[in-house]
């Protein structure tokens, strides 16, 4: 769906992107991660021709992007940036309607679409008549996402979209975006420098350094990375714990029928993540938890060895 082939881009004598290769499959959410200044934004912006590479080629749907007029290309690709860039002189509704209007979609259809988009990002239609200055950081980011999705583009480019909100709002926005992505299956290139964010969202993670993609794999595959090399060092030793946030307790619990009960074991919800389970084990200094289902009934137990064994079993 999106393929970057040997992209090079220099500013003066400095190479911002230095021979980057990356391929993102249709419907895949690829998180591009790397230290600040390593060329993530520059690479992302070659996909909608906001940056023209010195050499190399970007393909969208198998066709080189340079064959499309830039404006038409961009109208078919959603674009979300960290600073949001809402137009302060337009209402929320008019902001969301920008691309549909550029595409000449008729008025009645646009009004309905604006409401649907706002609803999608968790805002009621009344928000449509508000002004950007009245929004909190998190609300503005939601509107930014709604605006990028309004013309229903198959591709989304997101450059640190949740970078400027507080950690709690950030986690909520990530969770909501993931829910949207599970429904819409866009092809997404998502830039961040936050490892936790990458683990939460990514189908695949691409690690970038000094203008090159060092490694591109599923989050689970990165667990086996050598802690000594750059990728391992960048992801950090906590990676092995963080990755447990991608799986739920219910996926690995031992049903109550299989084993006897553990009287006195602390209990945890089946919907909790394995990272939370491990945290609870560490806090209580136990190796076994009692798992409860949604109604608070005992569903089984979870042992530390089950938690530690999980990612081996992952695809």
């Amino acid at each position: 769906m999106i393929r970057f082939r040997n992209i090079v881009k220099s500013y003066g004598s400095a190479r911002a992107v230095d021979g980057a290769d990356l391929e993102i499959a249709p419907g895949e959410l690829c998180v591009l991660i790397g230290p600040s200044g390593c060329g993530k934004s520059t690479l992302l912006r070659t996909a909608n021709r906001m940056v023209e590479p010195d050499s190399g080629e970007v393909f969208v749907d198998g066709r080189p992007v340079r064959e499309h007029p830039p404006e038409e290309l961009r109208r078919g690709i959603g674009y979300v940036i960290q600073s949001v860039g809402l137009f302060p002189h337009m209402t929320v509704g008019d902001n969301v309607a920008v691309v549909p209007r550029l595409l000449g979609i008729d008025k009645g259809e646009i009004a309905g679409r604006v409401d649907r988009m706002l609803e999608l990002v968790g805002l009621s239609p009344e928000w449509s008549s508000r002004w950007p200055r009245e929004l909190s950081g998190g609300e503005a980011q939601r509107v930014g996402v709604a605006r990028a999705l309004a013309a229903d583009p198959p591709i989304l480019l997101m450059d640190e979209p949740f970078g400027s909100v507080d950690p709690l709002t950030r986690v909520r926005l990530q969770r909501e975006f993931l829910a949207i992505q599970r429904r819409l299956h866009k092809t997404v290139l998502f830039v961040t420098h936050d490892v936790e964010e990458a683990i939460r969202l990514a189908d695949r993670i691409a690690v970038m350094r000094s203008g090159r993609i060092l490694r591109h794999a599923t989050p689970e595959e990165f667990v086996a990375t050598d802690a000594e090399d750059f990728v391992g060092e960048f992801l950090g030793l906590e990676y092995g714990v963080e990755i447990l946030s991608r799986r739920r307790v219910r996926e690995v619990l031992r049903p109550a029928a299989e084993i006897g009960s553990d009287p006195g074991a602390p209990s945890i919800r089946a919907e909790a993540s394995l990272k939370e389970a491990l945290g609870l084990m560490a806090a209580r200094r136990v190796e076994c938890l009692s798992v409860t289902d949604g109604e608070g009934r005992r569903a089984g137990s979870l042992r530390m060895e089950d938690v530690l064994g999980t990612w081996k079993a992952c695809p």
Partner: protein
Amino acid sequence: MNDASGNPAAAQADSRRLRAPGWVFPALLLAVLILSVLRFDLIESLLGIRARGLLVSRIPLWELALQHLGLVAASSAAAVPIALGLGIAAVRFSESGLRALLVAAGSAAQTFPSAAVLALSVPLAGFGFAPTFLALSLYGMLPVLHNTIAGLEGVPEAAVDAARGMGMRPRQVLIRVQLPLALPVILAGVRTSVVINTAAATLGAAMGAGGLGLPIISGIRSFDPALILRGAVPSALLALFADASLRRLEDRARRAAGGKPDGRGA
């Protein structure tokens, strides 16, 4: 948001009730201006002075005021669109050196005394309305040019980046995003330009262009302060009126650009 100062909504409603509507002040100035050119004798008796009348022009004061207004209006009407166009071109093609050239030329011209600009345009355009119009137009372009460049460059980078990234063509970015957001600053330049030219137009009398400068020049020649006031007071009132009404327009543009809460859509 800040509950420390009590209920903000109520405080806002209060200040709205206490503040006079924005058009009251300009309207008041206009009324005083009209009164002053029709019945300057009232102002003279108020101040207890009287022009000695040696060099009092036979042309009535209201006619001089209209000439003055015509000069300012014509020169501003020429200066504003040209300067706006130059400013837009300067920002759009800033790599070509046009911006640097215009900014340098503008700053240099600003340091040049307006009286000298007027005098130097006589050999170019002859005597009368034309040289004054030419000089005032050139002079009036400077603040508009300066503010157009500053206004466009002050538009948040993120808004322009988003506009381009969403697929607006350069012209659409300019018209739909950059100009509306730069408008308050551009209008401030227009206001400065008009106010400066209202004062500078009095110099046009020396060029044979008539206007409110005529009584001022006559007053200087005949050492008659009262006669000077006859030109100076209406000219100052005209400048104040232009300033007040354009300021109102500017405030409106600032609200439209999303800069200040005004309760719309809240």
